[in-house]
């Protein structure tokens, strides 16, 4: 019992050292993995058939960077009609405000002025004959409002540019980057291999820092929000590396910094657009924690 176990252990240790000495560029689809404490524990496994010692999966951490909406979303038709109706009902149930009372007074005064039997002395000692009419006040306010130009809510040209952070300000966007995995170029949430001696969240922070654009984000907690196990295709599988487990960490963008160079493989996508870029299996796992509320 002990002998075969020992042999297996020595073989895996040799393989481990081999993978470390092999330079990364010659990796054809392998993932280098770091030995973890679990591996040391699982080296003591008794059964020979178990291939779970050390853990055959490589570890990686990815960051789910979210840009929250900057402007309020447009109302859907039912929301708009409900909004109008509520406004109407509130108006009906309300009392007249000071401004409205003044309007009514002014209208009455005008009517009296225009009537034939108008006696200006009858008006009770109005020193405010020269006061601005309420209508004039309203007009001046209207003018002031028109003179202020707010920034446009929707800019079509920016919306179409997938790599700009300023697109689709009413939705929350996810950062997706193109990375080389094995021999393929895939669109993924930015990820980084785990190194010994750091927590997975630090790996995720490293992944964020490695992007060409200076992005500042707040990570929400130490716990991962999702996991994706990537199994290598059968011919490439060995006893020691079946694939990788990618843990996702959620972060909220706080500062986007200077705009990215146009050729950097970074995209900001809405949840509905993710389908066109991510692989189906990956998308299935990732969709669960991307909230599009």
């Amino acid at each position, binding site marked *: 019992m002990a002998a075969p176990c020992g042999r297996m252990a020595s073989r895996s240790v040799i393989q481990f050292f081999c993978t470390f000495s092999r330079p990364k560029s010659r990796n054809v689809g392998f993932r280098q993995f770091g030995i*973890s*404490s*679990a591996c040391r*524990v699982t080296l003591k496994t008794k059964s020979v058939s178990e291939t779970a010692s050390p*853990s055959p*999966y490589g*570890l990686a951490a990815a960051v789910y960077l979210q840009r*929250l*909406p*900057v*402007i*309020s*979303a447009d109302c859907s038709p*039912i*929301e708009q*009609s*409900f909004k109008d*109706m509520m406004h109407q*009902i509130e108006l*009906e149930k*309300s*009392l*007249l405000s000071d401004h409205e*009372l003044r309007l009514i007074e002014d209208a009455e005064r005008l009517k009296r002025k225009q009537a034939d039997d108008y006696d200006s002395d009858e008006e009770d000692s109005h020193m405010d004959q020269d006061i601005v009419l309420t209508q004039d006040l309203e007009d001046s306010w209207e003018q002031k409002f028109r003179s202020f130009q*707010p*920034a*446009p*809510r929707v800019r079509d040209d920016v919306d179409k540019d997938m790599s700009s952070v*300023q697109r689709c*300000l*009413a939705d929350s966007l996810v950062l997706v980057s193109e990375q080389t995995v094995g021999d393929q170029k895939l669109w993924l949430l930015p990820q980084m291999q785990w190194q010994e001696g750091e*927590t*997975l*969240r630090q790996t995720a922070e490293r992944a964020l820092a490695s992007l060409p654009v200076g992005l500042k984000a*707040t*990570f*929400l*907690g*130490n*716990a*991962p*929000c*999702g*996991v994706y*196990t990537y199994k290598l295709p059968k011919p490439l599988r060995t006893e020691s590396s079946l694939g990788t*487990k990618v*843990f*996702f960490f959620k972060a*909220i963008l*706080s500062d986007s910094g200077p705009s990215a160079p146009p050729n950097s493989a970074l995209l900001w996508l809405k949840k509905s657009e993710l389908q066109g870029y991510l692989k189906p299996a990956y998308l299935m*796992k990732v969709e*669960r*924690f991307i*909230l*599009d*509320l």
Partner: protein
Amino acid sequence: MSLAFSRCICRVLPQHIVHRHYPVYIMSKFSFRAEPKKKKKVDPKREQMMRERLKKKLKKLEKVPPELIPIEDFITPTKCLDEERTRPISAISFEESERRALLLKEWSRYKQKQHMAEMKAVESALESQREALEELKITSEELYQAALKPDFTLLPFTHEGPAYTPPKSKYEAPDGKYTDTTRVYTQ
């Protein structure tokens, strides 16, 4: 004692000397110049007790419960009770009231769907996190424990919510001056 002594001296000494009656000063315990203390020792204490009792009674009488701060939201200002301010009610046609009722029903259906969708999304996110933590536990106990630790650097977390229009770059807001008319009450 002095008297007895002087009597002795009279008998002993010849008479012509003793006639003078020298005042004999003999040290004695009692000083005859001080006022006699008529007050008893208990009296000042008794007076003090009386004073304290009176003070306590006074305090009890003067104790008024602190005035409650009025909640301004609950007091209808008299301006609103003015009869002149009632809006002339325009009658709502039957079609309008029907439309409103139907719209309200539509709205409740829409909101219910929205709520269910939200709940479902949150549940799926939680499920995903739970699975991730399970996987992590299987993979590495150390990393799992590190993931479970609370993050103290996160709170207090602030984020500017969405406004109606996006922020204008290089916008100089006009200086506004306002007088704060909130009434401050002290108890």
